[in-house]
């Protein structure tokens, strides 16, 4: 073994305590550096595998493409594979929804659809159904049998009147649980049927396509090509549907790599600062040792090598340990994340993910993640050692031999205290080692500030607020509306207005229920004209007096009072409209065509102000007036939403009673605050859990620093402390002194972490709010995080001081007094 390696190895063993701390730091750093990419990659791989199983394989589809365009698109150079689908119509059933679609063979493949039995329909009267469809139809049959189907054909953007026809079953699809639960099914019909029912030039196809991937394009490039091809054939962007899930699953997303790199850089930084600081704090102690080595002939290079190799020797033990722990932890983390995604909405995903994991389809251990984590950790160790290496090499032989503790510019005189107490003694020691104390505090506070900033964002992401934002009150009751169904013209809002289930009787009935405080009625009228096209339209919201303050407070441009909104000539518009119509400004006039019952009339209104409102208030419509004004414009009942304000956020009895009322009417539906809340809560819990676990490990890394500083400060003063005890310092006084020293580090770290972290948290909150992260709307100080961090640090420091003073006492006073070096 080379001499430098030998010395480095012996040093590693000699400075065992300190090197154990560095070892733990390296283990934790390696672990994080491994877990972050491993979990990221693992979750992606699982998602890809799940997507491959669940999602269709087309890259994009263009809606409303006619046959002629489809033929031209088919030969486009970027399109490698294509298929056609067209929805001929729906079976006319009371409750269930059964789409009758035609899909060609290539399309079937792109959709990953295939009948479980039989063949796809070719003749005009052939159909593929499922057992669920037969059940809904109330008929029975097997392949070759005939079924009678009532259906409405989709013509000119609307469902036509019901017809009836006999079909011969040529195949069966399997039903999923989801099909049964939601009562939504798909039946397959032939091209002949489609062309027979709908004139050729009226058939609207969905053109399914895959982009050629010979040149291994990224998702962004594929999306560009999809949009490009559409543009060449005059297909508007609104008619393009990109299969993002499938693309992300099979092609590299350029946004993914930088975020993983950023997180890893943060981990690297935390690890490097800690290792550097641990070395820095104990360097003085070793100055003599390096001086001696130089005196007996070690070169600067050799000294540097000794320091570096000592670090690398520790890494040689710690890195494999970190990788090993990381391997187990990352698997647990992935399973934990999957458990969290196991909400109703994600059931299919979580279930398939578990299948994928159990089948061993995804391999969580991947050689390059190990290599990456190990390489990055070794780099971290090297960077953190650069300065200690330089310091050790710079030591002058004579100076180092002469001085017990090398310190430059030691003062020979200093004013002192006339009277000494334990507190003053502590202060003396800390001020003597100002730079050391500062390095420890600053390096710990760096993690603390980062923790507080992340905690700010997380504490602002409140599922309660997100739910409040998406729903006014605890229950929202609204009539069932279908604007585009020829078979059910009575389901249009203008028709419902004439016989609106949301009437005064219902309101009183609900208000009489125990637990209901009041019912706030929001009116609405459909409008089009001016910037609103006839197809899309929009609505004029009539918001009641109770929300006057909220409306006025939300104004961001212009000025209008609730009283002025009662006139009916002025509207307040939601800021969101500017995304589609950036040209709109305060003072503009809108010429609206208002639909009310059967009648339509024009009205000119002025945009009095623009405001920023929660979706619960606007229900995603843009125009706002006072309820009184909207009601005045209407000759019918324009009550569109009943917002039930209850005394409790969730009351099972009340919800049941409301649900009974709704079920009895059969013409209304309900959204609940509780459901919204649950949805947000699950989503946030995962993010929060993962973030705090990550921050926790990061904090543990920086705590190694505190432990080292305190142990070191006692170690170098062992004799001094023994001396003080010899002349009468009691054990409890010693303990008190160590506690005070620790308290100083804790207080310093907390002051910077909490102080600076709170200040830095606010701009980050503003950024998160602006970019709609977690639906954040209000600033919440992360008090819980601040308290937890403070308590943990305090308890840790108290325990540490107790542990250290106990270990000091383990040696007898005599041993300590005699101790030198």
């Amino acid at each position, binding site marked *: 073994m080379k001499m430098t390696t030998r010395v480095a190895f012996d040093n590693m063993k000699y400075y065992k305590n300190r090197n154990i701390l560095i070892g733990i730091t390296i283990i934790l750093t390696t672990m994080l550096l491994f877990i972050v990419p491993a979990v990221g990659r693992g979750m992606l791989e699982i998602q890809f595998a799940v997507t491959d199983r669940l999602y269709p394989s087309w890259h994009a589809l263009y809606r409303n493409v006619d046959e002629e365009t489809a033929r031209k698109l088919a030969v486009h150079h970027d399109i490698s594979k294509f298929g056609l689908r067209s929805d001929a119509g729906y079976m006319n059933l009371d409750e269930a929804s059964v789409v009758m679609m035609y899909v060609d063979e290539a399309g079937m493949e792109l959709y990953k659809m295939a009948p479980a039995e039989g063949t796809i329909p070719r003749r005009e009267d052939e159909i593929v159904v499922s057992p669920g469809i037969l059940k809904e139809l109330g008929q029975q049959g097997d392949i070759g049998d005939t079924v009678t189907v009532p259906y409405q054909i989709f013509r000119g953007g609307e469902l036509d009147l019901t017809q009836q026809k006999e079909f011969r079953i040529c195949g069966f699809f399997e039903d999923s649980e989801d099909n049964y639960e939601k009562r939504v099914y798909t039946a397959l019909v032939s091209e002949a049927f489609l062309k027979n029912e709908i004139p050729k030039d009226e058939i609207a196809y969905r053109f399914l396509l895959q982009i050629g991937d010979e040149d291994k394009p990224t998702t962004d490039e594929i999306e560009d090509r999809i949009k490009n091809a559409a543009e060449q054939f005059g297909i508007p962007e609104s008619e393009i549907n990109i299969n993002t899930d499938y693309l992300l699953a099979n092609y590299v997303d350029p946004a993914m790599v930088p975020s993983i790199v950023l997180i890893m850089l943060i981990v690297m930084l935390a690890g490097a600062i800690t290792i550097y600081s641990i070395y820095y704090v104990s360097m003085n102690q070793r100055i003599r040792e390096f001086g001696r080595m130089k005196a007996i002939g070690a070169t600067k290079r050799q000294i540097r090598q000794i320091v570096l190799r000592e670090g690398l020797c520790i890494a040689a033990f710690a890195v494999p340990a970190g990788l090993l722990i990381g391997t187990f932890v990352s698997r647990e983390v992935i399973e934990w994340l999957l458990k969290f995604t196991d909400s109703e909405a994600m059931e299919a995903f979580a279930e398939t993910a578990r299948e994928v994991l159990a089948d061993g389809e995804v391999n969580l251990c991947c050689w390059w993640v190990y290599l990456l984590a190990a390489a990055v950790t070794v780099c971290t160790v090297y960077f953190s050692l650069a300065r200690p290496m330089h310091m050790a090499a710079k030591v002058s032989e004579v100076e180092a031999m002469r001085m017990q503790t090398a310190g430059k510019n030691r003062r*020979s005189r200093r004013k*002192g205290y*006339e009277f*000494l107490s334990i507190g003053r003694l502590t202060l003396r020691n800390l001020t003597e080692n100002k730079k050391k104390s500062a390095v420890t505090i600053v390096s710990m506070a760096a993690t603390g500030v980062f923790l507080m900033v992340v905690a700010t964002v997380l504490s602002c992401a409140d599922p309660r607020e997100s739910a409040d934002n998406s729903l006014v009150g605890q229950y929202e009751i609204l009539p069932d509306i279908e604007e585009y169904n020829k078979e059910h013209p009575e389901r249009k809002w203008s028709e419902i207005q004439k016989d609106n289930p949301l009437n005064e009787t219902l309101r009183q009935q609900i208000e009489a229920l125990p637990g209901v405080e009041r019912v706030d009625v929001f009116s609405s009228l459909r409008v089009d004209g001016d910037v609103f096209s006839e197809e899309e339209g929009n609505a004029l919201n009539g918001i009641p007096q109770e929300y006057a303050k909220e409306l006025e407070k939300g104004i961001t441009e212009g000025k209008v009072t609730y009283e002025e909104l009662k006139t009916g000539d002025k509207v307040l518009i939601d800021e969101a409209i500017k995304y589609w119509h950036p040209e709109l400004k305060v003072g503009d006039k809108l010429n609206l065509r208002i639909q009310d019952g059967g009648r339509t009339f024009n009205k000119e209104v002025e945009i009095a102000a623009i405001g920023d409102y929660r979706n619960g208030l606007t229900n995603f419509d843009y125009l706002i007036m006072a309820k009184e004004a909207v009601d005045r414009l209407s000759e019918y009942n324009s009550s569109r939403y009943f917002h039930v304000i209850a005394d409790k956020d969730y009351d099972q009895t009340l919800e049941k009673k409301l649900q009974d009322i709704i079920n009895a009417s059969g013409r209304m539906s309900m959204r609940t605050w509780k459901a919204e809340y649950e949805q947000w809560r699950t989503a946030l819990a995962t993010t929060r859990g993962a973030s705090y676990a990550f921050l926790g490990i990061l904090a543990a890394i920086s705590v190694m620093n505190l432990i080292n500083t305190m142990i070191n400060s006692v170690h170098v003063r062992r004799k001094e402390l023994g001396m003080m005890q010899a002349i*009468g*310092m009691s*054990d409890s006084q010693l303990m008190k002194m160590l506690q005070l020293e620790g308290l100083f580090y804790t207080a310093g770290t907390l002051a910077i972490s909490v102080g600076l972290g709170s200040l830095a948290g606010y701009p980050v909150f503003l950024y998160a709010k602006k970019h709609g992260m977690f639906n954040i709307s209000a600033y919440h100080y992360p008090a819980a995080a601040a308290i937890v961090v403070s308590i943990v640090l305090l308890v840790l420091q108290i325990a540490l001081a107790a542990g250290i003073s106990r270990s000091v006492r383990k040696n*007898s006073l*005599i041993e300590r007094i005699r101790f030198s070096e």
Partner: protein
Amino acid sequence: MKMDSGKILAVDGLVKYYGTGENQVRAVDHTSLEIERGKFTAIVGRSGSGKSTLLHLIGGLDRPDEGKVWIEGKDIFALKDDRLAAFRRKKIGFIFQDYNLIPSLNVWENIVLPLGLDNRKVKREDVQEVLEKIGLTDKEETMPNALSGGQKQRTAIARALVTRPAIILADEPTGNLDSQTELEVMSLMKSCVTDFGQTLVMITHDEMIAQMADRVIEIADGKVVSD
């Protein structure tokens, strides 16, 4: 054991062994002695004779395997650690060979440290008097690293004197000093005994120093061989 009022310290059947079996070292082996108030006693013996261990036991820095030590009639090993520490800072002044000053404190602070640990008020005049006595009045604010060996030891003597202890224990206080300084320090210590009426017990292997003592006790193999 009943103590004569003239005696300040009594040691009875003190035993301290280190190690076991063949490696056992009998550092102090059934030693008994008494020390008179206001006297300068020298304990002499060869290196490894157990004199330092005896001094440490007398000072309560270590606990014996057997035997008792009374200082001013108090059985010091009957005290718990914290009480013993408090007793030490009130009743015993220590002077060590390698001074053992606290490097982060200046001369004044080093001297008043035992008072601070005892939560006693510092009487400026008293400390000044001690400083004058040891000749360090102009060094109050000097840090230990800027002092000479003799000055360091004089500071340590001042620290031992400042609490007006019942007894001062010195462990080869001149071992690290040149002969000129040695003489200065010794005469200073001797004058403390006469001027302040202090009791001084000093370990030395220097014959000349032993000659200055009122009484010389010789130790060999952990036992008193001559008195």
